[in-house]
C-alpha cells in the first residue's frame, strides 16, 4: 500500500496501483491516473469505458472483466485493447479509481 498525490489530493493505492478507497476518487484525477497507466491522450472512448467501469462498480460491487465489458459497454473487445493496450479491465479500473476487478476464482 502507498499514498500518492493525484490532482493535489492524497489517495491510497494497493501494491498493484488500484484504489483502496474508491470514495477518494474524482473525475479531475482521470488525466493524471491515465498518464500513470501509460495513456497520454484520453479520448471520449476512453472516458466512456472509465465511466462505465465506475458505474458498474457502484452498482455491483466489482468492476467487470474484459469479456463482460465487451458484452455490455457497447465497445468491442478489440477496440478496448486498442484503447487500453495493457489490459482494458485492469487499466480502466485503475483510472476509474476502483479496486481490481474480481474476475473469477
Amino acid at each position, binding site marked *: 500500500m502507498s499514498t500518492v498525490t493525484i490532482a493535489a489530493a492524497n489517495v491510497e493505492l494497493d501494491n498493484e496501483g488500484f484504489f483502496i478507497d474508491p470514495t477518494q476518487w474524482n473525475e479531475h484525477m482521470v488525466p493524471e491516473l491515465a498518464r500513470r497507466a501509460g495513456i497520454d491522450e484520453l479520448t471520449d472512448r476512453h472516458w466512456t469505458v472509465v465511466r462505465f467501469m465506475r458505474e458498474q462498480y457502484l452498482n455491483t460491487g466489482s468492476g*467487470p*472483466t*474484459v*469479456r*463482460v465489458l465487451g*458484452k*455490455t459497454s457497447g465497445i468491442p*473487445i*478489440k477496440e*478496448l*485493447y486498442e484503447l487500453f*493496450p*495493457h*489490459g482494458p479491465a485492469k487499466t480502466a479500473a485503475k483510472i476509474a479509481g476502483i479496486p481490481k476487478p*474480481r*474476475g*473469477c*476464482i
Partner: protein
Amino acid sequence: MRSRIVILGGGTAGTLVANRLVRRLGDSVDVTVVDQDDSHVYQPGLLFVPFGRANPEDLSRSRRRQMDDAVRFVPSGVDSVDLAANRVTLSDHEDLDYDVLVIASGARLVPEETEGLTGPGWNDRVFTFYTPEGAAGLQRAVRDFSGGRVVVNVVDLPIKCPVAPLEFAFLADWYFHQRGLRDHVELVYVTPLDGAFTKPVASAHLGGLLRAKGIDLVTEFNTGRVDGEARRLVGYDGRSVDFDLAVVVPLHSGAEYVGRSAGLGDELDFVPVDEQTLQSKAAPNVFAVGDAAALPTSKAGSVAHYEGDLLVENIDRLIHDLPLSGRFDGHTNCFIESGFGKAMLIDFNYDTEPLPGHFPSTLGLPLLRESRLNHLAKLGFEWFYWHVLLPGRDLPGLGSAMPTRGKPGLAGAGLKED
C-alpha cells in the same frame, strides 16, 4: 397443500438437492427435475480420457436413475422462466407452475464466442477435453502425437473446475514421459491470469510445480482468435503463441433459457444470488445452486455438494414461512492430479485462501502438497460421487463448512485474504 418445487437441471447440484429434499420433506413436497437429456456425465473423469485412463462411455449414467423414486423427472428443454407468474415454459412438455424454483442448469461451453476456435483444425489439432466427444478426440490426437508443441489455453474465467487445465498439463508431462517422448514435446500453459492460479499461496505452489516439470507459463494472455491453419493463438494485445496441438478450455456461459428469462441472469447468463443463502436477487422463491449461480467461488462439484445441504434447509424454511438460516461459506475443495501417480488437494472458502496443512483435520489428506494418498482419494472419489454424493447422504465428520483444524497457517496473522 403440497409445495411444488421445480429444479431446472439434473446434474450434480440438481440431483443431490432433489434427493435431499424428498428425504427431508417427504410427502409435503412435489419435486420435479427437468433436464434436456438423460445422460449424467461424471465430469471429473473427462480429464483422464485423453490419456487413455478412462473412456467416455463409462463416465455416463442415466440422470433419472440417480434420483429417488419420489422425484418426478421431466425430459425437456427449458424455454424460459416467468418470475412474476411463477411458471416455467418448457420446449417439450406443458408448462410447470412452481412454489419454489431451483436453477441448477450449470454452465455451458460457448467455443463459438472465440473467433476461429471452432473453425479449421477444430477437433483435429484444436481440442477441448471438457466434453465427452472432445476428450475422446483428444485421446486419439495425444496417442498419435510424436512430438512438437502442446499448448494448454484457458480463454477466460469463469470455467468449471478451474484446476482442470493445470491438471491436464501435469498429466501430459507424465504421459509423454511414460512414452519416452517428453524430450520431444514442449508444453506451454497459457492463461489470462497473472499466475498459475487465482489464489496467491496456491498460485505460487502450482507455478512452482509447472516450473519443476518444465512446463512454460504464459500469463495475462487473452485469446482473441484461434488460427487452426497457421496453428497459432492470437491474443487481443497482439502477442501470439504457436502450437502443434492446442487444448483449449472455451468460454463458459450459463444456460440459454436464463438469458431469455427477464430479470433472472447476469451478462453471462449466470444467476446472481445471495452469497450465503443462495436466494436469487430477482425473486425470493427462486434459488440457484452449483455452476449456474454467479458466486465468487469455484464452479466445482464440491461447491454444489456443500451448497446442497444448506439450500435444502433454506427451502424447508421458506416453505414454512421462516427466515432463511442456511449460510454458505464458499467452501470448495479440489484434488489436483499432478502426474506420476500423485495429486494435491486444496481447500478454501470465501475468506480463506488454500493453505498448507491437512484435510479435514491434522490426520487427514495433505493440503497443497503432492502425495500418492491424494491421487488414490481422487480415483476413489468416482464411487463416492455416484453412491454417496448424488444420493445426498450425510458424511460422518464432514459438514458443509470449511474445516479449520489441520491448517496451522490459519492461526497466523496476514494469511487471510483481505
